[in-house]
């Protein structure tokens, strides 16, 4: 019986693992900062849903949110911080481990 504490799923973080929040972190990690409208369109989310996900990530200390104006239009920018980058890297590593484990279990050899 394998030790459950060593199973790769234990490395998955509930805050980060949610697919849309993982998407927000993935996009933000490619940029210095990303605008709310871009995230909404890229992830096909409603403004309300996206706002809730960003609030969760901000509450966990993984992203910083900056509100400002572009002319008269309000703009919200999301910036991933060091903790967010570390959490994203850990999550991606855990996912890769899970995939390689699944691959090795389905391998007929």
């Amino acid at each position: 019986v394998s030790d459950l504490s060593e199973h790769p799923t234990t490395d998955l973080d509930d805050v980060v693992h949610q697919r849309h929040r993982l998407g927000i972190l993935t996009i933000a990690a490619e940029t210095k900062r990303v605008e709310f409208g871009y995230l909404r369109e890229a992830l096909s989310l409603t403004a309300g849903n996206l706002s809730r996900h960003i609030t969760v990530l901000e509450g966990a200390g993984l992203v910083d949110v900056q509100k400002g104006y572009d002319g008269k239009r309000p703009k919200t920018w999301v910036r991933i911080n060091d903790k967010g980058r570390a959490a994203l890297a850990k999550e991606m590593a855990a996912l890769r481990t899970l995939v390689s484990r699944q691959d090795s279990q389905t391998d007929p050899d």
Partner: protein
Amino acid sequence: MSTEPAALLADMGTLRRRTRRDAHGYWLPLLLFGVPILAAALVYGCTVGPLVLDTPTLVPPALHLGSLVVQPLMLFSSFSITDSPLAIGLYWLGVIVVGTLATLGWYRWRAHRIGVQLRTGTYLLYALGALVVCVVLVPLTANWTLFVPFGGFGAPGVWGSSAAFLVGVGIALLFRRTRHVWARLGFALGVVITMVAFGNLVILSSTHGFGALLVIAAALLGLAWMERSPRCGTVAVLFTGASLLANLYDMENLLPYTNNLAWVTFDNLLLPGLVLVVGGIVALVADRRAASREIRQ
């Protein structure tokens, strides 16, 4: 999007690629630098005087700091046969400064338009770093370059400077963490040897006085790194090679040649200029095609 690990990883890969694609805007910086490089021959044409070598007019303006003589624009004009090395030097300085600032403005404007802001600090660091090396460090170390055993032109200079550079780095690394006074002196000696050797390598790499191309090459390598773009990286590497060729080889040997120095300059700058202009146009077309494909979908 799925929550299955493999599907999730694939989705994140797609998002990453899409974000990078949307953020790409390197076509404009390539044109911003490429067009003035091709147009530089006109400036050389306007400043060309009689074909007289070794006259004081060929020496770019210098600052006298005690016993040191510093020619900030030496790599941008010192080997050009022209009546006005200052005008040529200022032209290249202007191309670098205006091109760099315009590029920063372009990415700032794109960030507000598209919603994705890149870390332009990386690009600025490469551009400013290379500019400081060419305008401050090398003109300063040139005071000693000619008096050290590894100085001079040709293969001995290249091999000697390369070896001295490695030795200097080695000495500096060896003593970098030791606090003894002799070790500190050793560290300082290593740094000085490294800087003088590196300075001589940069001088040797800009023999034709097109040192500005090397600064632009460094800036474009930083741009490619900032954009995480293999295509931009390919253009930057090709441009670096073309810049070294323009500085080290007489391209008029291969291309149509007249005694007109503006024409000779054009021959030498044609390849690096074309690399950027063609690269910029290709990137612009690819950008437009990707955008129209997205609208159709």
